[in-house]
Structure formats: C-alpha cells, structure tokens
C-alpha cells in the first residue's frame, strides 16, 4: 500500500504541471492568448477575459476530478494492477486538459472572427527579418561536445570488449546505447536551435537581432549542459552496474540529474521570455505573425510552407515538431506508438506478475520460462549449487521487479552479480554456480535431485 501511495504521489505532479502550463496561456504572449492570435486592442476585451476565466475554472474542475480517479489503486494488493491503473490514468491526465484548452481556444477564434468582421486571420503575411540573422555570435564549438559523447561510449565499448569473455548482455547493451544517444541528441538539438527562425518582435532589426542572439545563446548553453550531464550519467550508471558505485549514490545522481535539467529548461525558457518582454514590450504597431491557421487545435503545428522541423510550442516551455515536415511525420507516428505502449506495458506487467516461473529440464539443460524462454543452463556447465532458505537481500541492475517477482540481473548480497528468476516470496531458492555466472532460481525437487547441492552451514 505504501508503494502504491508513493507511486501515486510521483504521478500527481502531472496535474500541477498541466494546470501551471495551461493556465499560463491565458497571459498574453505578444498577441497570443490561449493559442489564438488576437488584435492588440482586444487583448483586454472583457469577452476575452471572461473566456480565459471560464477556461481556468473548467480546467481546475477537471483536474480535481482526474485527481480522484486513480485513488482506488492505493487499496489494490497486486502491484501490476495498481501500476497499470496509474499508467493508464496518465493518458486522460494529459489529454483531457488539452481538450479543454482546444475547446476554449475555438471560442476565442470565433470571437476573433467576430472582432475582425468575418475574417479569420489578422493578415496572411509572415514576417522574416533578414538582417537579424547576419550578426549572430559564433556557435559553441563542436569540440565541447566530444568529451560527453566519449563518456557515453565508454560503457558501450566496455560491454562489447567484455562480450568476448562473458557473452553479450543484450539488455545492458541496449541500456548503454540508449544513454550514449543523449549527448549526440544534445549536439543535434544545438544545430536545430541555431537555425531557428529569427525572432520578430517589431520593425527594429537591431532588437530582433538581439533577441535572436539571446535565445540562441541560451539554448546553446542548455544543450551543452544536457550533453555533459548525460555523459556523466552514462558513467555513473556504468559504475553502478559494475558495482564500483553504490546503488544509493547512483540513484541520488539520477534524481539530481532530473531536477537540474528541469530547472535549466524552465530557467532557459522563462528567463529568455522575460528578457524578451523587457527588450520589446508589446505595442499596437508591432508586427505579429498570425499563424493560427497552422496550429491544429492550438497544439499540433502543421505548416507545409515552413521547412523547419521544429517550432516553439505555444504551450509550456517545449519545442514542438512541424508535422508537415517528412521527418516530423515519422516522429509523429513514433510518438503515437510510444503512447500506445502505455496500455501494452500494463498488459505486459500484469502478465509478468500473474504468470508463474517454470523450471524444466530438457536435453540436459535447465530451461527457465515465464512468458517466454528466459534462460538456459546446460547441466554440464554447473560447478556447484546451494540452497537458500530465505530470500537474500538484493538490488536490481537490469530487469523486472513487480510485487514478489524478481527477474533479470541483480546484485545479490554475499554472491555479487547474479541472474535471478524468482517469484515465490517464501523460498527456498537454489543458487547455481556455472562457468558463465551465478543463477538464483526457485527450488524444485526435480532440480534438486539432479544437482550437486551443498547445504551451507547453519541451515
């Protein structure tokens, strides 16, 4: 129950983040309110303010209701079912507030049409400042990205080098490759931010150039921080897996990594936005790009006339993708598939918790199965084995840990790194020593009759 409460408490900030980011859209960003570009003179119109107020009330109400939905999961004794409820709740927790946003944006667009006497846009012109891009600072040298990229590749090289002796651990290689990808991603993002469309805040090219310079410098610094922090994270995880660093300190670093990146991203965006507001306060004479027609429901950017892959998101601090760009289309499909993974993950977790682990002996080989074949241990490779009456204390390196199920690579107290396949919370268990490593399995009479079992002293 305590774990369920902790899980729920970890997920509730989603609602707070949703409220802060969406309610923030009721404040004018240049001429944009709730994703609708309005005439400057209408920003304080009582009808606009009323729509904004109603939106915030509706948002608060829906978030309270959404907050109550996953509460029953606290009382469910099965970890996989409780986690599935919370994971599946994430989808409506994100989608419902955005649907409300889209509904009130529609109302504002209707009002805008009324204000513009039937026209849907302020104008169809897109402004591009050609002078703003000329005097841009030299971007941070690519050289500074090399050390974090190398740091990310060290664990990959190490596991590939060791695979000649111990065999290749596919999951671990996948984990290291995924992490090594982040510094490279930061390098790629730096290029994207560098080529973003110059900011157009007014007719003064000097101010536009200064704003563009400011934004690019800030985002360039953020990308460098992201690359270095991710490079260090790769090393920390590697040291943790290799047991050169304790699990506790590894987790502490991961929490620090997440918090620092969150603070940096919020600081980068909000500080840049504040400075831009100071440098170019809004005025009726400002040039405004009315791009409402390119935003589907105010959230999805689709502009075939824009060859950029990314665009500053209208909601929150993010950058969104241009769905009209060929790469944008592929990324959109990928993101939809990722969202569909949430229900699949839930089904997989329930399957793992409720399918018993079976150990069979076929052709002089111990075969461990659960949902599918987990591992094979040839009897000839077994050097020794021992019975453990109680579950030893252990820390997961890579694998599953749902309820009483422990499966994967674990650091077992007194035995070091072992492959663990156990589900019964009571025991006894069988520790098998082979040439290729140690295995912790559930005890069975059939297995015990075939193995040279050593009973440890005191048991």
């Amino acid at each position, binding site marked *: 129950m305590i774990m369920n409460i902790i899980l729920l408490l970890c997920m509730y900030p989603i609602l707070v983040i949703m409220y802060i980011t969406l309610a923030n859209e009721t404040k004018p960003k240049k001429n944009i309110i709730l994703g609708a570009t309005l005439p400057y003179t209408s920003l304080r119109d009582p009808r606009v303010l009323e729509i904004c107020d109603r939106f915030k009330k509706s948002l608060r109400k829906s978030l309270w209701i959404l907050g109550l939905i996953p509460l029953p999961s606290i009382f469910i004794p099965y970890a996989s079912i409780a986690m599935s409820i919370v994971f599946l709740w994430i989808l409506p927790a994100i989608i419902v507030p955005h649907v409300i946003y889209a509904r009130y944006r529609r109302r504002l667009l209707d009002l805008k049409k009324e204000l513009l006497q039937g026209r849907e846009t302020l104008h*169809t*012109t*897109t*402004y*591009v*400042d*050609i*002078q703003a*891009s*000329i005097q841009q600072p030299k971007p941070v040298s690519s050289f500074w990205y090399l050390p974090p990229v190398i740091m990310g590749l060290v664990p990959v090289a190490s596991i590939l080098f060791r695979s000649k002796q111990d065999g290749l651990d596919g999951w671990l290689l996948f984990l290291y490759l995924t992490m090594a990808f982040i510094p490279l991603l930061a390098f790629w993002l730096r290029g994207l931010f560098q*080529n*973003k*469309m*110059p900011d*157009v805040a007014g*007719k003064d*090219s000097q101010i536009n150039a200064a704003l563009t310079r400011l934004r690019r410098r800030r985002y360039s610094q953020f990308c460098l921080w992201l690359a270095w922090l991710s490079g260090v994270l790769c090393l920390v995880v590697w040291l943790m897996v290799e047991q050169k660093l304790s699990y506790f300190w590894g987790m502490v670093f991961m929490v620090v990594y997440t918090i620092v990146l969150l603070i940096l991203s919020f600081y980068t965006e909000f500080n840049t936005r504040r400075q831009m507001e100071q440098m170019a306060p809004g005025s009726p004479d400002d*040039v405004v790009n009315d791009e409402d027609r390119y935003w589907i429901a105010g959230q999805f950017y689709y*502009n075939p*006339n*824009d*060859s*950029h892959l990314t665009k500053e998101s209208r909601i929150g601090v993010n950058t969104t993708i241009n769905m009209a760009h060929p790469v944008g289309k592929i990324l959109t499909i990928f993101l939809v598939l990722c969202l569909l993974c949430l229900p699949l993950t839930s089904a997989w977790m329930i399957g793992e918790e409720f399918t018993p682990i079976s150990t069979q002996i076929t052709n002089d080989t111990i075969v461990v199965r659960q949902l599918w074949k987990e591992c094979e241990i040839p009897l000839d490779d077994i050097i020794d084995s021992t019975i453990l009456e109680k579950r030893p204390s252990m820390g997961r390196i890579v694998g599953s840990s749902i309820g009483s199920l422990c499966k994967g690579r674990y650091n077992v107290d007194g035995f070091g790194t072992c492959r663990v396949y156990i589900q019964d919370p009571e025991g006894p268990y069988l520790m098998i020593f082979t040439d290729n490593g140690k295995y912790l399995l559930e005890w069975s009479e059939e297995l015990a009759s075939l193995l040279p079992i050593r009973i440890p002293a005191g048991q």
Partner: protein
Amino acid sequence: MLLELDFSSQTPIYQQIRNQIVLAVAEGRLKDGQRIPSVRTLADESGINMMTVNKAYQLLRQEGYLQIDRRSGARISIPVSSIFLSSHPEGAVVTAAVNQLRPQLELLISEARLHGVSQELFLSTCCEIFHRQKEV
C-alpha cells in the same frame, strides 16, 4: 529589414522576395554594399525552400541589385543607372532603364485606369513615392 511574405498570394514567393528587396534598396532601407544573408542562411532561418531563395537572389543578381560572392556572401549593389541619375538625367543608361520598365509601367497604368484611378491621382501618387524615395 523585414520581409513580408504572403504564402496565400498569387505572386510567387521568389517574386515577393525580389520585389521587397528592390523596394528596400529604393527606399534606402538597404544601402549599397550592405550584407544580406546568404541563400542558405535565409532559407534555413526563414523556412523558405532554398531553391526559392536562390531563384530570387539570381534574379536580383541579373538585374544588378545584388552581388554574390562565395566568401563574403551576398551584398546589395545599386545599379549603375541610379548613380548616373543625379549627374546624367538624360543619359543613355537611364533611357535604357526606362525602356526596360515601360511594359511594366503600361500594365500598371492599365490596371490603375481599370480601377477608376484618374491620371491626376496616379501622377500625384507617383510624385509622392518619388519624393519619399528621393528624401531617403
């Protein structure tokens, strides 16, 4: 200098870029020798297709408004006829320029007449534009 591009307009984007740069040169917003972004930079940053920007720049280069150099990028160049204008108003270069502009001028006058613009209003508008650009 702001480019105002209308993607829903009948005028092609390369023509819009070309027209606005010519206007900016005439109004003094872009000076002789002033650097403007290269084709790649403008395409990358504005999100306009590189071929479109290249077409506009090639047109401007052919008409003598732009010099494109691989090392120094693109620079504004005032056509020789404009420099001659002050010292040799009736010079051969100017006459050639007028002859070149004549078909466009005829089309413009025709459109103005069809919209009911009188000769006086048309000429006074021309004078006002001339006067404004001269001041710059």
